[in-house]
């Protein structure tokens, strides 16, 4: 590479720097190249002596953006995007297509971006149109032979500056995914076939988290809308705040929601148990086919709706403007906080409900289950 080319590539990749800093960097490298040549090297040798342009860029960013990011993080807990770049190209979104490695997002201590993977599991990492794109290299034949040879806890470690990103998209086959709370995203989509997912970062708009057989755990999330689910894995949600809505779904896994505040809340499972603890929402719909539904301090400002076929429904200090509970063979028991006009029907089970008081409707119907409800404790 000639001096001009080296400087041009450098200039293009550092265009985000303040003019003064940029000139300083270019002067520095231009001087080094001149000095190398004065020392007897050819122009080509001189640029080779410096090493790769990427290395030069990474070192420049090691002093420049980290300063910005620390300042912005101090000012504002969910920091503004801080010009993260990889190999000199800036990105605001992260895309990962992974197979067997666990994907871990790590906040960078020095403002630099780094991607590390297991040496026997080749990956590509590059910035495409502002997206840091990391892919497991698709050499199926090789992958087949490697399978089983590689340590089970191979990791794909993505170290990026903490702060806010536009979009996060991760898919894995068997790898787990961990997203810590130092990051935030405008939208996030995490999908794993058999890996577990742990997601703790705030999301401004939509969050989608889905695993087929892995467990999913989401903590301290704020989002506009969140859809979270697993087919056979368990789902644990703790301290979720969504002003739009929260939808959670499992087929055979258990579903636990704790200490959450959401607009429209829907929780559905087929055979897993459903446990809701301290949930405030507008409408609540909890559905199960054979799993039990247990709700403690679930308050719906509009309608609290619980449907089960053979699972039992247990309420403890719940309430809704309106309450509607329906089961086929499951029993319904427990307490509501305020009085209602009760309409309870059971074809073959026993019924015990408080006397109606003016207030919202509470309709409970079952075919063979028994009903025992009271108001207060």
């Amino acid at each position, binding site marked *: 590479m000639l001096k001009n080319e080296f400087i041009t590539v450098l200039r293009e990749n550092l265009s985000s720097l303040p003019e003064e800093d940029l000139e300083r960097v270019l002067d*520095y490298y231009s001087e*080094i190249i*001149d*000095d*190398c040549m004065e020392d007897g090297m050819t122009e080509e040798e001189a640029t080779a002596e410096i*090493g790769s342009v990427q290395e*030069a860029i990474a*070192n420049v960013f*090691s*002093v420049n953006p980290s300063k910005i990011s620390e300042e912005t993080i101090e000012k504002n807990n969910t920091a503004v995007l801080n010009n993260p770049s990889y190999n000199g190209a800036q990105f605001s979104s992260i895309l990962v297509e992974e197979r067997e490695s666990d994907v871990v997002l790590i906040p960078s201590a020095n403002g630099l971006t780094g991607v590390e993977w297991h040496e026997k599991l080749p990956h590509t990492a590059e910035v495409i149109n502002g997206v840091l794109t990391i892919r497991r290299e698709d050499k199926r034949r090789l992958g087949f032979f490697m399978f089983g040879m590689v340590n089970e806890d191979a990791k794909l470690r993505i170290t990026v500056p903490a702060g806010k990103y536009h979009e996060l998209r991760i898919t894995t086959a068997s790898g787990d995914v961990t997203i810590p709370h130092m990051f935030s995203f405008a939208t996030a989509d995490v999908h794993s076939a058999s890996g577990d997912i742990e997601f703790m970062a705030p999301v401004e708009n939509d969050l989608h988290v889905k695993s087929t057989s892995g467990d999913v755990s989401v903590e301290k999330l704020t989002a506009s809308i969140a859809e979270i689910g697993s087919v056979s894995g368990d789902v644990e949600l703790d301290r979720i705040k969504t002003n739009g809505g929260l939808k959670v779904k499992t087929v055979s896994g258990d579903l636990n929601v704790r200490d959450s505040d959401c607009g429209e809340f829907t929780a559905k499972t087929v055979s897993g148990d459903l446990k809701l603890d301290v949930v405030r929402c507008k409408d609540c719909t909890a559905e199960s086919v054979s799993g039990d539904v247990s709700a403690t301090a679930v308050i719906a400002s509009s309608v609290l709706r619980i449907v089960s076929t053979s699972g039992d429904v247990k309420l403890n200090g719940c309430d809704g403007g309106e309450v509607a509970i329906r089961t086929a063979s499951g029993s319904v028991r427990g307490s509501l906080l305020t009085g209602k006009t009760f309409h309870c029907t059971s074809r073959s089970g026993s019924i015990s409900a408080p006397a109606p008081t003016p207030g919202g409707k509470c309709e409970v119907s079952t075919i063979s289950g028994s009903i025992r409800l009271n108001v207060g404790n």
Partner: protein
Amino acid sequence: MDIQIKRGLLDVCVLAAIKGHDSYGYRIVKDMKPYVEISESTLYPILKRLETAGQVTVRSAEHNGRLRKYYSITESGLERIKAFNSEWSEIIEIYNFVNREEETNAEK
């Protein structure tokens, strides 16, 4: 080596390279290379850091019809080298402790 320790050591090495005489980028690297692993690219952030910390000052001077930046050490830079030298005896103590004979354990 631990990145924080390495960073601190490199800072001191660069200060040492300009302690006796003002120097410029290419020469600093050339002087350091026989002793320490360093490249022109890794030198850049170190110089910038030292300048920000007031341990190094920069001036431009004409050389063969072009400008070259010369770095000189400041009082505070010399202090830093002194501090490093006095800390070194502590580091040796720590090293000795880390590598001490296991007899103390055997006594139990």
